[in-house]
């Protein structure tokens, strides 16, 4: 019934899920969990505020991760950030430009932005060309927009490739601050080029952190429980290796 080689992974998934559900449950019972401040997420408000003061636009892109690929969780996390950014731009009457290279993002982006603006009674501020689809030429398109539309902040969140370097350098030339959030292993080297970063799992916690919802914050603690398990397995692996054993055989059952 169970596929060989995935049993231990399944057990780990269940344990981590149990951690997350436990902390979420305790939050529903009134327990308030605290998590560390994440200045890079808190800086989102400052970045949008800067654009409002300078009369410049805010740019956001949710990356190259499709909704049916393994990169989809990163896209969903990025959409949570988009939702927050759109709420802020609607409240602060700042122009929002949302670009995408993925066709399947378009209906979602449209729905999220429109509903957020509707909720803030700001539909009249929403320009018809707020969402721009560039296909595989998004890097070129964003570089053009950052200069031509005078963007003051650019949020590059979700799964990204090396093209983000070009965008961030163009942003720097145009006095535009960047926040780069990515959990794609192949693009880890892009982080030094951004003004602010959401590295790896920080991207996934951003949505929960921004929601300020105690249940969602509880799930972040569950996630940390998963990391503790990972570290324990890592240490056990090192000890077994030093003693001449191999933990890999056990993990691949």
């Amino acid at each position, binding site marked *: 019934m169970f596929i060989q080689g995935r049993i231990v992974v399944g057990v780990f998934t269940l344990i981590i899920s149990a951690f997350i559900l436990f902390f979420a449950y305790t939050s529903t019972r009134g327990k308030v969990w605290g998590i560390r401040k994440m200045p890079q997420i808190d800086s989102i408000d400052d970045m949008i505020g800067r654009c409002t003061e300078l009369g410049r636009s805010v740019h956001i892109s949710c990356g190259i991760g499709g909704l049916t690929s393994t990169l989809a969780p990163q896209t969903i996390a990025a959409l949570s950030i988009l939702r927050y950014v759109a709420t802020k731009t609607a409240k602060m009457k700042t122009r929002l430009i949302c670009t995408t290279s993925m066709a399947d993002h378009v209906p979602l982006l449209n729905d999220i932005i429109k509903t957020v603006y509707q909720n803030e009674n700001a539909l009249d501020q929403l320009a018809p060309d707020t969402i721009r689809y560039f296909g595989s030429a998004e890097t070129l398109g964003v570089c053009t927009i950052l200069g031509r539309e005078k963007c003051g902040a650019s949020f590059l969140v979700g799964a990204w490739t090396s093209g983000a370097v070009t965008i961030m*350098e163009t942003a720097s030339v145009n006095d535009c601050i960047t926040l780069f959030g990515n959990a794609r292993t192949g693009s880890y080297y892009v982080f030094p080029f951004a003004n602010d970063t959401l590295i790896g799992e920080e991207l996934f916690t951003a949505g929960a952190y921004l929601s300020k919802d105690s249940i969602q914050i509880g799930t972040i603690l569950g996630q940390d429980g998963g990391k503790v398990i990972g570290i324990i397995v890592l240490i056990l692996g090192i000890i077994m290796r030093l003693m001449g054993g191999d933990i890999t055989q056990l993990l691949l059952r």
Partner: protein
Amino acid sequence: MSIVYKKYIPIGITAITGVIVLFDYYVKIPEINSASTILTSWGTHLSYFAVLISALMIVRQSIPKIIKQEKDWYFYGYMLTILIIMSATGFISGIASSNYSWWYNNFYGPVSTTLMAIMGIYLMSASYRAFRIRSVPVFGAMIACIVVLIATAPAGPVWFPGFGTLSQWIQAYPSQAGIRAFTMAAAIGTLASGIRTLIGLEIGFLGAKEDKD
């Protein structure tokens, strides 16, 4: 009613499909495996419709700019022309045809290649900006960069023979350790994000959080 339609129904669909596809990864039960295959193919088909919506959105955004002759309207005109020509060529002769390839190679290809060439220059200037020594960790990163750069330069290993081994060591141990930590944390984050989505806590992809009945 709108909150049911825009929030609870999508969360329910996400939870059911998510659980089926998740189970498909771990178990060998024909009913679950075939249901997962069908659901995955539905997702792919839905994304094809999204391409059509995106193309229509481009047309809807471009036409008013061309009619009103707004700033840079001719670029929008050019884009629409290429969109129509390439769509027509694709529909008539197929995307594997030489006609379609000709348009792709002669219009998109040069621009794409130019971008890749520009990216090299941008990478250099961005590196200069990013690796200005402002702290001890950045100084360490800078040293590692110089070693790897010299080792991979054509004349580097000739002038500095030891740098090749040092570069390999940097890439095999400190760099690899960092990448693995990044991968592990991202994997756990992905799992947590998936669970939040399945139980209806992560609803950033819906547009209806503040909707009232």
